[in-house]
């Protein structure tokens, strides 16, 4: 079973995001960069499939030079090799363009299943996995919390609003990982040492034969809308405070 896991390097969830004064993006000073948590579930699942069924795990990441650390993290967890798509012209483009580059890198390697995170926690766009599947001409199963593979098909659990679906898909396919799929392992010290020697192939758009044609653009980045200052409800007894809260919710906010 040959498995591909796509990973993206993103700001740690602890990061306080600061918008640049001119609205051209976020201020990256002091950001701690980590593997997108949803991609980590994908890498872990890829490693589990390899351990069960044999084969290779290839990590593919699009990002600047620093993204190599994230590829090395996945290699240290146990993946075999990496492809690093590093091209400034591909940075900050859109899901279609990114997926086009990923598809170009993946189409020439053997794969039975491709994992992506269900979304990256930076742009929260949640499109790349599905677009990648379309460009490779294979099915997708998205936001998945359980994966079982038997030779030619996979059965997955996909939670939706008010229900859970059991879906069967032919292989190869793209699976996008949701929290709950597994508990990702930590890289071991020997794993970290070994990862340094594992091969990482570096590609740019031209090398992949990708023409960049941007379809969507973030034209402005803004801080979240300010919230008016709140009210602390005072009172002697809990009952008194609760009564005042209920009154405010009914009469002032009109939400109950």
């Amino acid at each position, binding site marked *: 079973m040959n498995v591909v896991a796509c990973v993206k390097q993103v700001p740690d*969830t602890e*990061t306080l995001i600061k*918008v640049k004064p001119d609205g051209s993006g*976020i201020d990256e000073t002091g950001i701690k960069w980590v593997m997108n948590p*949803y991609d980590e579930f994908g890498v872990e699942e890829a490693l589990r499939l390899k351990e069960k069924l044999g084969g290779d795990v290839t990590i593919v990441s699009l990002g600047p030079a620093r993204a190599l650390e994230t590829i090395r993290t996945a290699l240290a967890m146990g993946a075999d090799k990496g492809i690093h798509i590093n091209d400034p012209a591909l940075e900050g483009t859109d*899901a*279609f363009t990114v997926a086009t580059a990923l598809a170009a890198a993946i189409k020439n390697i053997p794969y039975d299943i491709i994992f992506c995170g269900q979304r990256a*926690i*930076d*742009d929260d*766009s*949640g*499109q790349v996995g*599905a*677009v*990648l*599947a*379309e460009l490779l001409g294979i*099915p*997708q*199963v*998205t*936001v998945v919390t359980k994966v079982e593979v038997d030779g030619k098909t996979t059965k997955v659990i*996909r939670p*939706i*609003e*008010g*229900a*859970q*679906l059991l879906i069967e*898909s*032919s292989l190869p*396919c793209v699976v996008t990982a949701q*929290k709950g799929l597994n508990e990702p392992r930590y890289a071991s010290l020997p794993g970290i040492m070994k990862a340094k020697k594992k091969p990482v192939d570096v590609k740019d758009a031209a090398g992949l034969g990708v023409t960049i044609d941007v*379809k*969507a*653009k*973030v*034209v*402005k*980045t803004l801080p*979240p*809308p300010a*919230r*008016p200052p*709140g*009210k602390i*409800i005072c009172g002697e007894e*809990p*009952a008194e*405070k*609760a*009564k005042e*809260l*209920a009154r405010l*919710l*009914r009469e002032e*906010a009109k*939400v*109950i």
Partner: protein
Amino acid sequence: MAKGVWIVAEQRYGAYRKISFELASTARKLANQLGEEVCAILLGSGIEGIAGELGKYGVDKVYVADQPVLEPYTTDAHAAAVAKVVKENDPSILLLGASTQGKDLSARLVGKLATGMATDCVDLQIVDGKLSARRPMYAGKCYGEIMVSSFPQMASLRPNVFPAAENSKAAEVIKFDPGVDAGQLKTKVLEIQKDTSGKLDLTEANIIISGGRGMKGPENYVLLEELADMLGATVGASRAAVDAGWRPQKDQVGQTGKVVSPNLYIACGISGAIQHLAGMGSSKYIVAINKDPDAPIFARADYGIVDDLFKIVPELTKEVKKLLA
């Protein structure tokens, strides 16, 4: 030239989901500014009868494909059907819901139609004849304004944010052949396990009552359940509570859980980690109940009570019961 504002309506078990009406009335508003018509795509089996209902929310034409192969939803069948009718009609704007189904379908369509999309939008405007979309990024720690330069300009709408305003039109219903062959489908829904709790999903709930580490254990969530039952609310949880195994994964609100926008969010015993604040910060009204006056949640709350939730919540339930009686 690309023309018309199109939506993909969403139905489940033969009934519209609320997002369909939010889509229709948002599309109507945009179409009025452009002087164009609103068309909806409705897919499923045995659903032709409900097609005309979309007229009530301002839809001019409903393109319906009514075939067993389209029920239940699969990405391959629905994406093929939508792509076919969209390519034949060349709309300028295509809107879907950012529901679980809408997210899955819209992303596949971005690939099929080779276009761009703004996901999970909270505001849409027409600027110089083009769609301008506003959406939270970094789970709401900042916002982006997106312009799509290819056609159709796609956007998915966060449920529960856009109003569903009535605007009666006599919608024309047009049947089309989705051109989907069941033998070609690569995915199949084997089983649907329905949640029998009767509660709305967090992403669809008008009121959410969430409990965090301060709940002290899974057994105490019954306090929140009682208040939730009274208000028709859904109970959520912080990551701390989910990681402790007190609540299921699907209940987690935050940057690695669900991002929610209810009318009212009541945070009980939640300190307000940045990841949690990101996930619920766009709620219309936020209430914080916490013993710790320095908890960061109070900086976001419209109403705060600094006290023991085990004393406040039962009293609040009593008060709400009186008010609603």
